[in-house]
């Protein structure tokens, strides 16, 4: 019975070796988790920003004429422009609508801005009679 209960604890060597192995494996695992977090964040930004760009694009396409309250005319660039300032939890945007020569076709350029940097863009066109 004494022999049966004589279960020795971990030796110092075993503990040190275990901790060493755990350390070796944990460091790359942690960096992998950090990488995962970064990639997830980039993916989220990618999705949110293109959704925002699409929102502005569809807003323009739904207009019968260019809304002069939202879009101001820049005579130098010969384009209608709108700047949306960045708010908390909302991206900023720079939107330009340019007439294609003297036709009814207007080209649209949308840049989505986060902390002063363009993080996504969308281009398209619309017909205004």
């Amino acid at each position: 019975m004494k022999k049966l209960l004589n279960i020795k604890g971990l030796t110092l060597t075993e503990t040190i070796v275990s901790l060493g192995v755990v350390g070796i494996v944990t460091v790359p695992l942690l960096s992998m988790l950090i990488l995962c977090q970064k990639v997830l964040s980039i993916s989220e930004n990618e999705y949110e920003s293109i959704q925002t760009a699409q929102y502005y694009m569809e807003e323009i396409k739904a207009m019968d004429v260019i809304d002069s309250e939202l879009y101001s005319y820049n005579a130098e660039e010969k384009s209608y422009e709108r700047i949306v300032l960045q708010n908390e939890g909302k991206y900023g945007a720079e939107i330009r609508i340019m007439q294609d020569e003297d036709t009814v076709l207007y080209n649209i350029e949308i840049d989505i801005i986060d902390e002063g940097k363009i993080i996504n863009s969308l281009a398209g066109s619309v017909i205004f009679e």
Partner: protein
Amino acid sequence: MLFLNKMNNRGSVLVLLVVVVAIVTALGSSLLNIVFANYDIKRFNTESKRAYYLSENGLNESYVRTRCLIKEAIEDSVDKTELYLIEYPLNEEAAKNIFKTNYKQYLTANIKSRINRHGNPSVEIRNLGSLIFISDVLIVSLRSAYVLDEVEKITWVELNISVPEFDDVNDEVYDVKDYIEFGNWNS
């Protein structure tokens, strides 16, 4: 009892540790795969949207080019009708028919060269074999494709082109936009 004595616990922690580390590594690499797959999906979504709007741009450009063609067809038909009227000033009904016929011929003869494009976006007429005016309306079915990296987005639309009246054109009380309209947008 003898068997238990022989099977002591020495080294069992290491075995357990290796098993745990293997499981955690497998879970970690699966997580990494899922995260990168998620990123690829988001990128694809972005490129798909970009390609869609640029493909639509091809249809809008075709609409503008077709408007120009309609204007040319009207001008050409007016010239020919006026020449006829100089020769036969009393034959107004025949002149109107000449106007309509010439307008239709001019459009059907030139629409392919004016619309079909092989660039990016590429635009083509789908019903090229059946470009006929039915009840004075020509339906032109367009297909525009835009390729962006590995994404190809295709959009379709129908252009309904109608025939103006010679009197309206002659009196210059017409607008080209009245003779063309979009129908059946698809993507």
